[in-house]
């Protein structure tokens, strides 16, 4: 088993954390994992993306050229990374900020209004957890309980009150693909 995931969006959308949580959960479940960030050439603002590899074996390269899964949280990210997705791969799109669909028919495209759902839950910033929910709901790569543990691990003490809304967002995401 080996899954290569690229997550991308604006700086500030919690892209990095989403990837860290996924990698961490997979580690807790006994997998080999790697996570690498990439900030565009701009020092601040601009796009941000990270690459997560999850595998049963030693991971040769943490750098992904053809992801199995792409999570695109905004339009530039979709445009930049969709062409790289493996044939048969999955693209999860944040419908709220992406008004187009990729022009490939050899991949599975899942549109979800992550930002909208998060807003509905009361905080636009948990859009990342909605998207992560979609990812694990769709692929089953890690168990929701593990992800919740990881969220807890990453939330600093003074933010523990955010636990609930994150959990909700994650579950809403899972529900989106299982409905």
């Amino acid at each position, binding site marked *: 088993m080996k899954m290569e995931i690229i997550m991308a969006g604006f700086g500030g959308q919690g892209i990095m954390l989403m990837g*860290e949580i996924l*990698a*961490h959960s997979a*580690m807790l479940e006994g997998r*080999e*994992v*790697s*996570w*690498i*960030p990439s900030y565009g*050439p701009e020092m601040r603002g601009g796009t941000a993306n990270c690459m997560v590899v999850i595998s049963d074996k030693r*991971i*040769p*390269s*943490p*750098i992904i*050229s053809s992801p199995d899964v792409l999570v695109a949280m905004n339009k530039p990210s979709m445009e930049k990374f969709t062409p790289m997705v493996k044939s048969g791969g999955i693209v999860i799109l944040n419908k709220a900020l992406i008004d187009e669909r990729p022009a490939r028919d050899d991949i599975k495209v899942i549109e979800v209004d992550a930002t909208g759902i998060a807003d509905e839950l009361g905080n636009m910033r948990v859009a990342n957890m909605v998207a992560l929910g979609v990812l694990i709901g769709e692929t089953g790569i890690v168990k929701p309980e593990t992800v919740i543990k990881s969220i807890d691990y990453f939330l600093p003490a003074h933010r523990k009150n955010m636990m609930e809304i994150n959990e909700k967002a994650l579950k809403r995401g899972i529900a989106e693909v299982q409905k």
Partner: protein
Amino acid sequence: MEKVLMKGNEALAEAAIRAGCKCFFGYPITPQSELPAYLAREMPKRGGVFLQAESEVAAINMVYGAAGAGVRVMTSSSSPGISLKQEGISYLCGAELPCVIVNIMRGGPGLGDIQPAQSDYFQATRGGGHGDYRTIVLAPSSVQELVDLVYDAFDLADMYRNPVLILGDGILGQMMEPVVFKERPARQLPPKDWATTGKMGRQKPNVINSLYLDPVKLEEHNLKLFKKYQEIEAKEARYEILNGDDAEYFVIAYGICARIAHAAVEMAREEGIKVGLIRPITLWPYPKKAFEEVLPKAKAFLTVELSLGQMVEDVKLSVEGRAPVYFYGRTGGMVPTAEEIFEEIKKMRGLS
């Protein structure tokens, strides 16, 4: 033992504390910032010293002072900052002071960019400073190995009274992988009876110094250093060979580049190309032995670097004309994909 998911830079910092590093002196620079930030938080809590120096030059000379005082000490920086430390490194080698120096390399020359690179190889292995000296250079390629090599780095430094360089790059510094901080049995290390700790009843003062006005004395000193270097070359070269049993072609790469090359090698083997990987773990001493091992069967070598060709000279010096040596590199912060390297492997096979 507990596995934790950590960034390379932070894991390095944690490993240093656990390896007994008492003092850290550094000056901010991207992409190694997580390392000093971690130590700024942790050192005060754990009885160590974190001090932000006024410059890289000051930092390396603080390292000199603390190393001379007999404690384990570290500094870290990235390419331009390491260039500024060259005089200091030459002094540390001349005065035989143990310390650990981290270079999380970025694109150059000049201000360049802040993306990953391996173009400080020459500087690290040939001595960017003046005089006949060497630093031990370790090149980890995973976060776990980074951690493990930090312990080794401090031990080697103390064992040989010599600076040890850890050469990483922006990716390694910023990537997260699970790590385990293994407890290590204490190594038998020589006592630091040369350190300047105050005479404290000692008869003769200890002196930390690299000046020998009489060239006869300086030559003696250099020959003594040279002998030490030869001993290190004989004992401490490290490497990993993949598919050494049957491979006819070899890719040589270190650090993050070795990881990508590994993926490329797997691709090639899926297509039935008998290719292996030599991954130097020490860049100085360079593991020439690895080449002797594979040369009987090797038809050609491909060096892959994040540079325009630096380690390739060591490959050539190891191969000595006994097989063709090819090179593929990306530079300025660009990173090759496994596919690109795979293409180069196919070219190598075609040519040889």
